[in-house]
């Protein structure tokens, strides 16, 4: 395959907390190719947002920091570039939208100004052009009467509308990558589908790649070509969406599928046990305590195994040498 647009290698992100250091992302490898949508899936608390904020270099300071790894974007390591260069990347080449549309917009500025601000920062447009472009963006994300709504304040809009504004803002400078961190989690089901459709459509139109973070496999099925499953800060399975849905391999992924409510079956099958605390992960595989296929080797870190072309699992169960 050609070189990925965004190539994360061995990312380790840590927080220093009162209870000591905690590794929220532990050795993450992730490749996002141009034009693709990659789903980053896992239960809440598994480190998805931290991974995204690491890419943007927006980790909460001073607690969070990237301890190891490389984040190659078009060949450049974003962890090495200056803060000034990083500001030219943010919102311009890589932009991000967040889970909470209700609180992600500044309450004291009009939505128009908040879009305008990004345009003015990155694109050499006159005031009028930037203002016009802000209207165009609102139109693009499907807000009716954009020329009037541009003067609205965030509190005058619904959650779905605000998320559309966030998308307009994120896409105003035509970024190459958009990171969407659970963009629909806080929204009503009907609105969720609209926002996902919108992201897919704009991805085509603008020709960007999307890193879609979600805990919902249903969302992945609708929108992603590639999937990466995370558990307790580590990647456990990577595959194309088709492969993952046809033959999920990692016991954790299997558990995720089993826990999706199905029409014919009224009983939910949540994964037994609880997510282990990041402060005292077991030696070896982090999932072992909840795993139905646990074996002696699980006390050692499992290897990555390619069970079919481009379908990787990090699990001893598929280790043919030892079986």
């Amino acid at each position: 395959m050609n070189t990925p647009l965004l190539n994360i290698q061995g990312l380790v992100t840590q927080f220093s907390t009162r209870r000591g250091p905690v590794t929220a992302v532990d050795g993450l490898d992730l490749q996002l190719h141009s034009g693709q949508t990659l789903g980053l899936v896992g239960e809440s608390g598994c480190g998805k947002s931290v991974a995204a904020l690491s890419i943007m270099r927006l980790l909460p300071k001073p607690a969070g920091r990237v301890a190891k790894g490389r984040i190659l974007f078009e060949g450049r390591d974003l962890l090495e570039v200056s803060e000034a260069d990083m500001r030219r990347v943010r919102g311009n080449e890589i932009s991000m939208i967040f889970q909470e549309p209700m609180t992600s917009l500044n309450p004291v500025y009009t939505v128009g100004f908040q879009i305008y601000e990004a345009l003015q920062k990155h694109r050499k447009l006159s005031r009028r052009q930037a203002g016009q472009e802000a209207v165009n963006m609102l139109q693009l994300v499907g807000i009716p009467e954009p020329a009037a709504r541009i003067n609205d304040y965030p509190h005058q809009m619904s959650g779905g509308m605000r998320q559309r504004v966030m998308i307009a803002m994120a896409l105003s400078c035509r970024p190459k990558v958009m990171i969407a961190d659970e963009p629909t989690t806080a929204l009503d089901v009907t609105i969720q589908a609209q926002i996902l459709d919108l992201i897919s459509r704009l991805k085509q139109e603008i020709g960007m790649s999307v890193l879609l973070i979600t805990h919902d496999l249903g969302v992945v099925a609708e929108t992603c070509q590639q999937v990466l499953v995370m558990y307790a800060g580590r990647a456990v399975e990577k595959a194309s969406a088709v492969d993952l849905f046809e033959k999920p391999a990692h016991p954790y992924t299997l558990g995720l599928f089993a826990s999706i409510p199905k029409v014919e079956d009224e009983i939910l099958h949540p994964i037994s046990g609880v997510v282990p605390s990041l402060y005292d992960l077991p030696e070896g595989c982090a999932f072992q305590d909840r795993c139905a296929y646990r074996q002696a080797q699980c006390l050692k870190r499992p290897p990555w195994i390619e069970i079919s072309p481009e379908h990787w699992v990090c699990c001893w169960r598929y280790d043919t040498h030892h079986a």
Partner: protein
Amino acid sequence: MPIDYLIRRLVHLLIILFGVSVLVFLMLRMIPGDPAQLLLGEFANPEELAGLRSQLGLDKSLFTQYWIYLKNVLQGDLGISIRTEIPVAQEIFVRLLATLELSLAAMVIATFLGVAAGVISAVKQYSIFDYASMFLALVGVSMPIFWLGLMLIYLFSVKFSVLPMMGRLSMGLDVPSWSGLVVVDSLLAGNVPAFLDSLKHLLLPALTLATIPTAIVARITRSSMLEIQNQDYVRTARAKGLSNLVVILRHTLRNAFLPVVTVLGLNLGLLLGGAVLTETIFSWPGLGRYVVNSLMARDYAAVQGCILIFATLMVMINLLVDFLYVVLDPRIRVHD
């Protein structure tokens, strides 16, 4: 701001002023001390005293006295000062402007110094600057104004003789009285020596008066900034690639400023109170000193007039704060 809201506030103002006038009227007459006695001295004979009392209307019933007072006030007549025999309104007006000059200067210092210190402390949390300025703020709020004023006078006027210790302007300098604020008037008149001289006179009293509000504003600004810094929309602003300065000023301070405005408004009231002490220390010819002296002489009309003016100012400041709030926060703008 809609008209009916303004009218409602004006009605409030009238009710408050009525209440205040009754209270002050009664309280003044409850404290011991007879104006006639004070005016005529210890050895005045009873006939003289009785004559003066009836001349001042003090022999009438309290209710009648208040009724006469109220009627006069409603016609803009605050009475005549028994000490100077000049209309109280006239005396108050001149002194009010002196107090206003001092309070405004203190307010400006408190706002700029306090907000700047608070912002830097929050942005550089746990830095040396943060610890130092918060320590100073703690010292500042607990500082006795009287002691501070005297120390400043000792240091800058007595020891190093770089700043004057009293008054608003040196002898021999003359400034027209257009706005009543000497600093402004001297500047408008293009009188540079007088302008610099009046600034020098203003500096120590304004610093003294500003100490406590500066400390309060710095602390509020810091805590408010720390809270807003963690808001999602500040992260959004960073994610847009905006510069640090824009994120701090436009997206953080602008929101963090709302509680600061309230505190500033409340402190303007405190400031007027603090002005009484500061004016006494620095012989500043303002309302604070005037009200104290009038009280000593049981100059009822003067004290009542001053308190009414203070109350009016407080209510207007509150109105101004409300108005600023509406300007600053679109969420509370009334919309149809």
